[in-house]
């Protein structure tokens, strides 16, 4: 097991390094000058030059990259142009909101897709199966922002059941928090369930053909137990992998959903930084999100090994 982890870690670190490099290079795409952008058009050439020296912008590219990377590794992501607050602090303050959103969304998506997939696989080819598969395919053509608008219209405008925007912190009022998170989480979940359901369904259909399922039937076990214990467990590995890989799409979707529903998360921070051209925050958020994504995928790989005893024992 340890060898397995070490091997994967050795692959992880170069990727993380490449991510930092790419983020830095993207930042240097800015036409014109960062100092100029900060000070605005009215700035005098002297002031711009002074700021450039201050920020080390007159140094060669590789020097600036290493300097920046060094700062990152010490937790110094720079400071916001607008507010002066440390970038890392701003990110960490908003992280819980985004995490809560993504977690609720993934759980909701799983709660929708697992029962549907099992029911479809158990009677594959039947009317229910065809209906659900068709709906899933159609849903894939409805993007997040469209679904958000539709849900807002149905639940907030027409039915007036839920708030369209606004966020109540968890610590303040957990019920209000759930109310404000329900539509956003549902929007993201609706984007994820078709993929999750399709994957689990096809995995279950393959699993249900296996000999050990016939054996389970021959043992006279209840259908429920056969589906949920004998068939679901071997099929769930792919599901977990897909759910883990989906986190990348969830992050992108979260940006839109946080914007539409006015949730104070990292996505909103990113967009705010773009609207106000606050490049320090922008760079910090991109790096944080990308690195986080890589690390989460790594953890999903580890989880896979934990769940499949065959993978684990192959390395003993």
């Amino acid at each position: 097991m340890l060898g397995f982890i070490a091997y994967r870690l050795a692959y992880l670190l170069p990727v993380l390094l490449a991510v930092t490099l790419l983020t830095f290079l993207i930042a240097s795409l800015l036409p014109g000058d960062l100092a100029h952008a900060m000070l605005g058009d009215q700035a005098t050439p002297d002031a711009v030059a002074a700021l450039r020296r201050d920020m080390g912008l007159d140094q060669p590219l590789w020097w600036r990259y290493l300097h920046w990377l060094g700062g990152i590794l010490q937790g110094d992501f720079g400071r916001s142009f607008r507010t002066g607050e440390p970038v890392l602090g701003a990110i960490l303050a908003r992280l819980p909101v985004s995490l809560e959103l993504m977690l609720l969304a993934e759980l909701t998506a799983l709660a929708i897709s697992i029962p549907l997939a099992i029911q479809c696989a158990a009677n594959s080819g039947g009317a229910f199966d065809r209906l659900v598969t068709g709906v899933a395919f159609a849903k894939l053509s409805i993007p997040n922002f469209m679904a958000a608008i539709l849900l807002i219209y149905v639940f907030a405008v027409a039915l007036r059941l839920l708030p369209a925007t606004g966020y109540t912190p968890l610590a303040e009022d957990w019920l209000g928090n759930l109310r404000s998170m329900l539509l956003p989480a549902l929007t993201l979940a609706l984007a994820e369930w078709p993929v999750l359901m399709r994957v689990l369904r096809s995995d279950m259909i393959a699993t249900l053909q296996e000999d050990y399922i016939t054996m389970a039937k021959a043992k006279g076990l209840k259908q429920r137990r056969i589906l949920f214990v004998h068939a679901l467990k071997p099929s769930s590995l792919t599901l977990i992998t897909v759910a883990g890989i989906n986190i990348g799409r969830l992050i992108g979707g979260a940006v839109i959903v946080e914007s539409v529903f006015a949730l104070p998360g990292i996505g909103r921070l990113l967009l705010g930084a773009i609207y106000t051209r606050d490049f320090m925050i922008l760079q910090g958020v991109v790096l944080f999100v990308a690195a986080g994504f890589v690390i989460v995928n790594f953890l999903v790989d580890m989880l896979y090994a934990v769940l499949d005893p065959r993978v684990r024992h192959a390395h003993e």
Partner: protein
Amino acid sequence: MRTSKAAIVGAADAAAELWAGFAKFGWLFWLALAWIGWIVLAAGLADLLPLPSPTDMDMLERRAPPSAAHWLGTDRLGRDMLARLIHGGRISLTVAILAPLIGLLIGGALGILAGYFRGLLETVVVGGVDVLLAFPPLVLALAITAYLGQTVANLTYIIGILSIPAFTRVARAATLSLAKREFILAARAMGATELRILLRELLPNVILPLMAFFLLAVAVTIVVEGALSFLGLGVPPPAPSWGGMIGEGRESLETAPRIAFLPALFMFLTVLSFNVVGDTLRVLTDPRQAAL
């Protein structure tokens, strides 16, 4: 008399075969193709169609319901909805087709070369693809747009470059499974140069799954561009785009929901159509399923 009878029989046979071919694809496929056809045609001929200007504002007719002057009503600034839908479609479809084209040409070439020559080239390409895929795509697109500036051209380049990894993967996978087949070995045995094998034997076979994937990529691009425009960070206003129109329609949900729903419907139908056609072709052209 005999020749014309033979001709009739021949025509009937051809028609029967054509019909069988039609039926094989399913009615949904043809419906989707029809929608794509008409929307592309309408968007392409946008300037020639007898439509009001998509940017003319009429403050007296804001959020107006459908009428003789405005067939689908007006938006919150009094602009004609139908005109904006068609012109917006033109911009959205232009980006949607050109951006994946970049991915197809560059990513396809990279993938074929990586899958065929293997070795260091493949390691570098796969590594590069993995790094690019380490960034959640929307975040990356937003970031680069922020730095480079918000124009339709930049948008096309950015989305195009972001689609390269996916095309590389598809091309490489197809090449890996095809390069083992006998017809490649046979060509090599007959002394063909590598370039010739690539162009004459491999490329025509890899192009099929790539084309199917291209259509799926068009669908995805419409969505990505739509999301960016929805946030105000895609197609720069006042130029119309479906995503932008949905975003603008948000504040009118109470009074005139059609302002958001009409572009949503158009986008949904277009994305669905490309998905249907692309998916059908993907199933048909998957080299793993093709018989030897």
